[in-house]
């Protein structure tokens, strides 16, 4: 299959490229930019005038709910949502049921993803057996089975001795460790500890629950030289800690969930359970610091932190609801909104959605260099859609962004050189 994507504005952050040119795809790879390769005859032409052509998005944290919670969503349902959102690569944390702590689960997910035939589904293996934080998981076997890293799966390891050994063991096999930085004992609350939680009478989660954990973990990294990625930062102080550690040359990176770049504790007004997330939405100052961290490079990736829920999971008093936002559908458009409304550089934002996460994963994807895997997202940056209730393609309709005017509409997506999504109309 040979495809030419014609006349689009090609944005390839990995090569600092921002130019209007034709992009040629052949045999699943990027064949050329600008000039057609000798003898290139396109089987298909995509008109990309007034559109942006960028690498397919990479989402470092998406829960597809399978295996174990198929009443919320499935690999098939969620990968369909991803592809329409321009996301070509999804990383699943290991807190499935059963957890991804043995090769069979990785193999099972791979087969389900292949059957769904939509996007690239990658897995993180568990750091500890059953994610219980007691005994190490068989990380070498997990790596052989194809996991792209190992993780605590959103359930931090309580015992520091176990954590230290898990880090060392992971490093033995050159695995990047994905940690969710919060102190469980300081995180029994429901909302950011501050003015809003005080008024609403919601138990608070102090920022120190996150910062303190990161500070401790950074010392372990300093000791051991292990590659660690911190997922879903929420506080200004965390950004500072990561920025300093990176400046010192520690092998660490961090990401932020897209909703933390748009929402704050103020959005809990009316006890809106759609804004019940972990880590909690924090102050305006934290949100601004996260945005600044994205621009400065302290934060290397934006992820959806996708957590689809069935309606019942959110239909209860705030504290009885399950945390999480369905985020795959809106990852790109909310990122573009950062550019449009808050003046963040488009190139930087696209970088944090493509080659930023690719580098964390250590994979040769997320760029449009000649010979690269042709994962491509074509979108119309000027289209604006009002997000209507029920409009999400994800099975989880739990989004606080319903009713928002969102810029950008994905028109085509290519996975390994095949058009797997084409917007109707």
């Amino acid at each position, binding site marked *: 299959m040979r495809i030419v994507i014609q006349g689009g504005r090609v944005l390839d952050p990995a090569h600092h490229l921002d130019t209007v040119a034709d992009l040629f795809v052949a045999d699943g790879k990027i064949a050329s930019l600008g000039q057609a390769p000798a003898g290139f005859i396109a089987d298909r032409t995509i008109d990309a005038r007034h559109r942006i052509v960028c690498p397919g998005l990479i989402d470092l944290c998406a829960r597809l709910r399978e295996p174990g919670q198929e009443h919320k969503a499935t690999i098939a349902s969620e990968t369909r949502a991803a592809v329409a959102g321009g996301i070509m690569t999804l990383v699943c944390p290991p807190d499935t049921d059963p957890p991804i702590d043995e090769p069979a689960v990785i193999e099972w997910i791979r087969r389900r993803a292949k059957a769904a035939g939509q996007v690239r589904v990658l897995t993180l293996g568990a750091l500890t057996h059953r994610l219980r934080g007691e005994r190490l998981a068989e990380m070498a076997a997990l790596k052989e089975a194809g996991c792209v890293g190992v993780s605590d799966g959103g359930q931090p390891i309580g015992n520091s001795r176990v954590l230290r050994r898990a880090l060392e063991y992971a490093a033995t096999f050159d695995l990047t460790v994905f940690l969710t930085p919060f102190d469980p004992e300081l995180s029994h609350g*429901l909302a950011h*500890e*501050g*003015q809003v*939680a*005080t*008024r*609403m*009478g*919601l*138990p*608070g989660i*102090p920022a120190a629950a996150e910062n303190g954990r990161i500070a401790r973990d950074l010392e372990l990294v300093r000791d051991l030289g292990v590659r660690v990625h911190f997922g879903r930062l929420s506080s200004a102080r965390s950004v500072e800690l990561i920025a300093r550690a990176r400046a010192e040359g520690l092998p660490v990176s961090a990401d932020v969930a897209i909703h933390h770049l748009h929402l704050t504790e103020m959005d809990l*007004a*009316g*006890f809106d359970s759609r804004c019940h997330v972990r880590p909690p939405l924090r102050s305006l100052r934290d949100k601004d610091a996260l945005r600044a961290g994205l621009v400065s490079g302290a934060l290397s990736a934006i992820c959806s932190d996708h957590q689809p829920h069935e309606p*019942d999971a959110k*239909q*209860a*008093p*705030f*504290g*009885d609801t399950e945390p999480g936002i369905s985020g795959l559908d809106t990852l790109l458009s909310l990122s573009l909104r950062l550019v449009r409304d808050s003046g963040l550089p488009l190139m930087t934002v696209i970088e944090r959605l493509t080659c930023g996460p690719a580098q964390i994963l250590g994979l040769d994807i997320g760029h449009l260099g000649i010979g690269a895997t042709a994962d491509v997202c074509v979108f119309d940056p000027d289209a604006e859609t009002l997000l209507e209730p029920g409009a999400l393609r994800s099975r989880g309709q739990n989004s606080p962004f319903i009713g928002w005017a969102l810029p950008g509409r994905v028109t085509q997506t290519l996975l390994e050189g095949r058009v797997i999504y084409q917007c109707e109309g």
Partner: protein
Amino acid sequence: MSATHFQLDAQGRLLHFLTIEGLTRRHLTDILDTAESLHGVAERRVKKLPTLHGKTVINLFFEASTRTRTTFELAAKRLSADVLTLNIATSSAVKGESLLDTLRNIEAMQCDMFVVRHEQSGAAEFIARHVKPHIAVLNAGDGRHAHPTQAMLDVFTIRRHKPDFPNLQVAIVGDILHSRVARSLIHALSILGTGDIRVIAPRTLLPAQVENLGVRVFHHMQEGLRDVDVVVMLRLQRERMEGALLPSEQEFFQQYGLTEERLALAQPDAIVMHPGPINRGVEIDSRVADGPHSVILEQVTNGIAVRMAVMSITLGHHARPVGEDA
């Protein structure tokens, strides 16, 4: 949309009574004046008014309560409503029925008002957002968030003794962190223009940035009680002792217990209040609780009139269900 606006209709009248926060002085004085006019009913030979005749009030208690539940029941009965109390903590909720299902079922019994107590902050508002529009929802306590009728009966009691709010100094003592009573009372006192609102507690029992609610923070009783006109003691739940919030009941009483000696620091005619039930010897000495400054039992009596007022005001503003005669 916040609860503040949600509980009001387009004309700014109360449809539900979910929280004090965001109400106007007019709302509060209306309730207080109505309660004052209803206060005499209990002294009559026939303790009944026909205001809610033919209305059905359901008390939905997802959390145990004696005082609040009983006074709501009495208030509804004195207004001639039919009243049913459901203690859901011990019925369907444990069988796994969701709150919405419980609501739908009770709604199907054609009632006009829900009085709700629930352990989760925001539960009353959640219920108000999900019931049919002709049903009024009164919050009888939601988590740590609000207990607006308690706050109204507290300010009602204060007003009967000391009506000059701008020149009033009020100290609220004890477990502010977990207290919906404190939150609602602070809002009510602020709205009424109270000159000086103080909270007195160790830092472990104060929520973050509590001063933003418009209070002055004290950690020592001796300083905090000086010259106050009103002392509101909060209940210290015994189970809080397990959470590493306090070392012991003894130490709490030594530091924050209200004794006659400490009360002497306040104004000579200071009144002592407590939302009950009181822990004698934990937050308050028996001699103070039963002493001449105490208005604790008056609060209970006043609770009925205040709840009658809130019930008649909210139901009065509700559109009738379709098909009902004018």
